[in-house]
């Protein structure tokens, strides 16, 4: 082996060592605002101000590094005891600073970002709207905590659950059109939302086409006219649907509806690491529907 070859191998070895032992190297990452963050060591004290980010950190195996969350973070069980630091609009700056976090994770719309940054904290802004975003967020956060392979492991688990869920959907329901109501205004989850993406993975259709946007406010008449085969919504809303004018004619309300309790519903509307679990929950409801002739 000549000298050049040897030098090349040495270089490869150094690069490989650098990426597998990031604790020694500087971590550089770009968040969803485009801001570049540099960390000399993987953050050990993390504050998360969004439930799906809390869940992602835990799913990547770094739950013990969380020192505080927003008030809505309630999963997994172990984060319930952490200090609750307010919500998107009213995060408690003083308490967050007092926790001396190495990094704060927040959504784009969080009002607290500028304030925290001016106080010298690292705020990594992440926003997940689609399945692809969830995957991207997972690898970003995995990089942040210094465990890049965890992202693939997490995504594989989500994919596995998605496939299991799809297999559970009865053949006679495949391709049927779902109306997924996210709010009684009514707002629907369209085909381009992450909920719509999950439904598509389950082999289901959607009464709201992608061109209407992820969560459009619909004219209620549209739903009556569309005659969805299946209705999904929070349980309270499903129960109230038959009382809406004209909605008693929805065939889906007779044995083709999924009314989710609050906890289940929360699972469905968070674009995060439990998406696979959410798909399974939807599939379980679909599987409980009997074949109609």
């Amino acid at each position: 082996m000549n000298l050049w070859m040897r030098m090349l191998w040495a270089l490869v070895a150094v690069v490989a060592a650098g990426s597998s032992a990031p604790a020694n190297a500087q971590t550089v990452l770009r968040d969803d605002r485009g801001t570049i963050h540099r960390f000399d060591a993987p953050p050990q004290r993390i504050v998360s101000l969004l439930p799906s980010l809390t869940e992602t950190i835990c799913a990547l195996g770094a739950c013990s590094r969380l020192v505080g969350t927003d008030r809505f973070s309630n999963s997994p069980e172990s984060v319930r005891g952490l200090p609750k630091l307010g919500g998107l609009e009213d995060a408690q700056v003083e308490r967050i600073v007092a926790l001396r976090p190495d990094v704060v994770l927040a959504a784009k719309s969080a009002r607290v970002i500028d304030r925290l940054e001016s106080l010298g904290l690292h705020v990594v802004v992440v926003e997940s709207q689609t399945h692809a975003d969830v995957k991207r967020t997972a690898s970003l956060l995995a990089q942040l905590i210094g465990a890049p392979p965890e992202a693939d492991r997490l995504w594989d688990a989500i994919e596995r659950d998605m496939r299991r869920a799809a297999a559970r959907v009865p053949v006679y329901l495949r391709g049927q059109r779902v109306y997924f109501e996210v709010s009684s205004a009514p707002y629907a989850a369209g085909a381009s939302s992450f909920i719509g993406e999950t439904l598509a993975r389950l082999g289901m259709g959607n009464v709201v086409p992608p061109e209407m946007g992820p969560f459009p406010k619909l004219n209620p008449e549209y739903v009556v006219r569309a005659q969805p085969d299946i209705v999904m919504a929070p349980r309270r809303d499903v129960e109230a649907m038959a009382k809406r004018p004209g909605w008693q004619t929805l065939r889906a309300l007779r044995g083709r509806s999924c009314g989710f309790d609050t906890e289940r519903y929360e699972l469905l509307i968070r674009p995060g690491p439990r998406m696979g679990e959410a798909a399974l929950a939807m599939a379980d409801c679909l599987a409980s529907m009997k074949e109609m002739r």
Partner: protein
Amino acid sequence: MSVAPASTHVASHDAHDDRTRRRRLVLALMVLAIALSVAGLVVGSQGWSWQAFVSDVSGPQADLIVGQIRAPRTLGALMIGALLGLAGAVAQGLFRNPLADPYLLGSAAGASFAVVLVLAASTLTGHAISLATAALLSRIGIVAAAFAGALVGVLLTLMLARGAQQGVRLLLAGVVVGVVLGAAGDLVTTISPDALRGKQVFMLGSTGFLGWSSVWVLLAGLAIALPITCRLARVLDALSLGDDTAASLGLPLPRIRLALVVLMALCTGLAVSQSGLVAFVGLVAPHLVRRYAPAPHSYTLAASAGMGGVLLLAADVLARGLIAPQELPVGVLTAVLGGGYLLWLLHRRRVG
């Protein structure tokens, strides 16, 4: 802000002119109400298409789409607007204040607080309220809760102001009750965030789910409130000359004020229970009427009801049609339509 006094006494030289304007306004409102009602039947989730309407009416779903959904929605919007317009005219006459609106005396805050309580009932169980209370609350439903909440809000205001003797005291009490109940509602949503979505729907106002049962309730309310209010109109005329003058005319002011406050609360409570807090209609409808045709209160009250109805229905038709099959929040359009028109009227008057 220069606004016409609540009741402009007709000067002799333009009495004829004013009468013509009043007649013209009534005519215009009637024509608009009919035209917009037709539009309300035609415009749906397919937008403005006449062809789609014809095929709907001749199709198998005619009764469902037009009869059960669009017709009651159209009539309901008209009557909710009328109730709000009427309540707004009463409020502005009663307080001799052009900024008064139907939500002033704690009814809006009371209604939204009650709605939030119902929405949060299941989460609050075991923390703040007992299981039985929670079950009761969720059985009441949002409609009844909003109505009761609006009335309770106004009742609190009346208690705080020790009756309706003093207008200013009443206004102040209303503001305080509004702030306190609003804060209480926010506290509940902080504890139980899943009530937030439902609260937002209520706060924005919506005409989407008005059915025939709503229409009958609203019609009954309007049929009771409108004649009684118009009968009390002369008191508002007297009030516009000041409390002392009104009292010297031998009017039992406290009692009549109380009656007007109660009527206002009933109209407002009924409207918000069916559609949530539709913004601006109650504030702007009386202004539009007075700007165009200054008149004694018997006219202003009835015309404000008409104006409110037309305004809300127009907003509803636009909300359905502009980006069909999606909808805009109807409250946004009432503000744009009513506010825009009022601005134009103010501008024209100053120029002319």
